[in-house]
Every structure is written in C-alpha cells, then in structure tokens.
C-alpha cells in the first residue's frame, strides 16, 4: 500500500471525458441560523453559517434531482435516450428500498435501456457517482452517464448539525471530452474507515463520532486527497483559478484551502455554505456548478469532496470554449440562491415533518 507512487494513484480514463451538461438545484426556503439559536440557545453564541436552505413539503431528493438533471440536460442538449446511466448519490433517499434513480430516469425520458442506482457515502456519494460515470464513459462502454449528488439533510433539533444540514445539490452529465463544457482530466480518492459521523438504519438523525469530525476526518482526508492529487499531476495551487472543497460550515473549507496554499479568492465563487448551508452530497458539487457559471475557457478547477466514514475524491477540471455557449441554457446556481423565502423555526418544523401528528 505505502509504496504506491503518486503517479499511479491518478484515475484517468482511457478516453478523455468531461462535463457535457451541469445543473444545480436549491429549494427556495431559508432558515436563518439565528432562528435556530433563538430556539435552542436563547440567541447566544456564534452560529456556523448565516442561513440554510430548507426543502418545501412536496420536495425530496428525487424531485430535486429531477430538476437539477433537467438543467444539466438543457445545457447538454442531447437526446435523453443516449444516456446509459443515472446514478444518484445521497444520504436522504426517499425510500430505504426503491431507487431514487429510476424515478429520475423515468422523469427525464432516459428509461429503459440504462443503468440506474443509488449511491451512499455520506457527503461524497455524488462525487463517487461522478467517478463511476467517468469510468463508464471513459471506457467507452457508454457515451453519456448522469451523476447526481443531492440531499435533504436532517440534523437533530438543537444539535450543532441543525444549523447547517440543508437541501440542494447538482447533476452532471458526463460524456466525451470533445463535447464537454469542462474536461475532467483525472481524479483520485483517499478513503479510510473513520467513524466520525454515522446514522444507523431506521434512525432519523445522525450521530457524531465524538470529536472526530475535524482533524481525523475532514481535514485529514481532504488534505491527503488534494495533496496527493497535486503531487500526482505535478501542479500547485497557483495553477488553478478556482478550488472547491466540501463545505460543512464556513470555517472548514477556508482552513483547508489555506493549508493547501489556496487563496480565499480562489474558493470564493464556490463557497456557498454561508447562504445555503451544508447540502451534504451536494455540497462540493454545487460549489462546482457555481464556479462553472462564472469560469472562463482554459480555467483550471480543483474540486475535493469529503464524505464521513470517511473519504475524499479530488478532481482536476479544465473549462472549455463550449461552456460559454451552453451555460446560459439553464438557470444559474446563484439564481436559485437568490430565489429566497425566509421561514421561522415553527414553519421549518412543520415543513420538515418534525411535528408529531399521530
């Protein structure tokens, strides 16, 4: 294990692949952190973000995935029947048994000749699906594969997580590099068994692994994956116009960026957590959609996700000329963020099913 040279760690498809279309989704409701603080701490103490997104009563990971995927397909402009995989990564699939992905595939007209499956790896289920899609297209088994990371995360009332656990995500149609708005040059993953955060079967709310969240989990895995990726590609922070790291709160991605030598300017366009919260499987990748909304051809982007349990996926992405002609074909990430209705804690408890009705 330890004698792997970093060169060999890079996952690089034999056929170059990229993002042919991308789409974001954020529900419209916002719960200010001050509201949670008002209920649980009497308004004292700091809050980790400004506000978080909350899904409407008729939304779930399936409906939100459908909208993000519709945006991705609008930008891609391809026939849905050419898509040969629909993979949805989430820790809040509506069903314990019955795939979210078949609902999405059906709604988008991708059925019946397609792979479909749900992925779970805490907050990195979406990027895991992206890596799989890269392999699927890169091996020439398929022309296009749809990878989605989407969540409607729940934190226990009063728990620190309640401030940030939010809803949203993104969809990426992975296809041949020559059709891409952004080429994914390579990827690399770093995974260990680390019990920082978990939710047992049938439990509504997750548990923290004592104080594992920060150092042994988030920072260790992101920096290890990122540094290995930089080494393997012989690049440094300055080679990238933008970077996005999994964003569970405002502080963590800023710190990890600094540790890796990235400036706050490089992460600013993708740093959405202060205004939408931690969208879990959607967190890193919705940062990427926000970056693609503003990037220029030739720009290099580093994306590193993190999922508890734990692991990180690092991606090197190069924007192409094609982005300019495709990105306005669907609503931008910031448009979803601007579409905002503030709610109070009482409305939030009702919308999130926290009121006991029977």
């Amino acid at each position, binding site marked *: 294990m330890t004698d792997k040279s970093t060169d060999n760690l890079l996952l690089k498809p034999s056929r170059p692949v990229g993002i042919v279309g991308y789409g974001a989704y954020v529900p*419209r409701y916002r719960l200010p952190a001050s509201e949670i603080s008002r209920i649980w701490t009497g308004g004292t103490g700091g809050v980790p973000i400004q506000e978080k997104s909350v899904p*409407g*009563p*008729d*939304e*779930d990971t*399936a*409906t939100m995935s*459908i*909208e993000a995927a519709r945006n991705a397909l*609008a930008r891609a*402009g391809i026939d849905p029947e050419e898509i040969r995989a629909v993979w949805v990564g989430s820790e809040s699939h*509506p*069903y314990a048994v019955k795939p979210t992905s078949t*609902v999405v595939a*059906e*709604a*988008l*007209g991708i059925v019946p000749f397609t792979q479909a499956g749900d992925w779970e790896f805490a907050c990195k289920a979406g990027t895991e699906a992206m890596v799989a899609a890269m392999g699927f297209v890169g091996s020439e088994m398929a022309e296009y594969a749809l990878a989605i990371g989407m969540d409607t995360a729940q934190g226990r009332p009063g728990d620190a997580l309640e401030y940030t656990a939010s809803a949203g995500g993104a969809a990426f149609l992975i296809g041949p590099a020559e059709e891409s708005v952004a080429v994914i040059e390579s990827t690399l993953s770093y995974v260990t068994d680390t019990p920082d955060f978990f939710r047992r079967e049938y439990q509504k709310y997750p548990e923290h692994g004592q104080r594992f969240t920060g150092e042994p989990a988030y920072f260790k895995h992101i920096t290890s994956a990122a540094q290995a990726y930089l080494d393997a590609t012989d690049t440094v922070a300055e080679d990238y116009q933008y970077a996005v790291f999994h964003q569970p709160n405002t502080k963590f991605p800023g710190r990890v960026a600094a540790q890796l030598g990235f400036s706050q300017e490089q992460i600013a366009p993708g740093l959405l957590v202060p205004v939408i919260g931690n969208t879990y499987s959607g967190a890193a990748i919705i940062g990427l959609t926000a970056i693609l909304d503003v990037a220029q051809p030739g720009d290099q982007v580093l994306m590193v996700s993190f999922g508890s349990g734990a692991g990180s996926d690092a991606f090197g992405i190069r924007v192409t000329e094609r982005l300019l002609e495709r990105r*306005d*074909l*669907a*609503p*931008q990430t910031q*448009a*979803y963020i601007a*579409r905002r*209705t503030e709610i109070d804690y009482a409305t939030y408890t009702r919308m999130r099913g926290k009121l006991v*009705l029977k």
Partner: protein
Amino acid sequence: MEIPRHWRLKKQRYALVGEVCPHCEAKIFPPRDVCPECGDEAKTLFEFSGRGEVYSYTTLHNAPAGYQAYAPYTVALVKLEEGPMVTAQLTDIDNQPVEVGMPVEMVTRKLRAEGDDDRGMLVYGYKFRPMELQPLAAAD
C-alpha cells in the same frame, strides 16, 4: 393502495407527456387517443414544454384525505402554451400574490403518499410554480 394506476400514468405525471394529433397537429393533454379537435386517432407521444399561465386558481383549506399535510395549498387551472389546460397545484408560491395570467412552469413534485403517509408509495407528479428561474438563453 392504488399502485397500478399511478404507475401506468407515470409518463404523464412526471413529465407532462401527452399526444400530438398526426392529422391536425393539435396537442393533447391528458392523452385521450382520440383528437378532441378533429376526432381522428391520435397516439403520437408529445412532451409538453411545461410552460403556461394561470387561468384561475384558489387555495384549499379543507383538504381531502391524503392531502392534509400540505394544506393550505393552492390549485389552479393552467393553460399550457401548446394549448391544452391542466388542473394542478401551484407550488413554491408562499405568500406571493398569484394572479390570473401569471406565467408558470412545470416542476415534478410529491403529490401524496399512497395509503399511509410514512409507509406508502410516494406519488410524484406535475405541479406548477411561478416562472422566475429563467435560463438566460434559449436552445436553438
């Protein structure tokens, strides 16, 4: 439980798939196989754009069984840009004023759970929301 009936309608429900009459080009939703315009057979599938405008609307407070969790909610007659009218809920409207003529677009949302709210199959289908998230450009 009525799983088969929701299942067989999924294309219409999820994506507004109706029909276009091969004889007179009339767009038909819900699909009815006989063109209401010319009376000829019409079975060619047609996916509607999902754009339309509010023809009329109201807010329901006394919800039927299975919909109480969503009440109060707003329902509307929506005139699709291709011609047909559909009955559907409006969503994502909050306290925004709804008006006759307001442009709306289709989204796929949860309609209800079949049977038990927590255990039953989820029924997804079209709803409409104010057209406020427009792409900056249109596809050719």
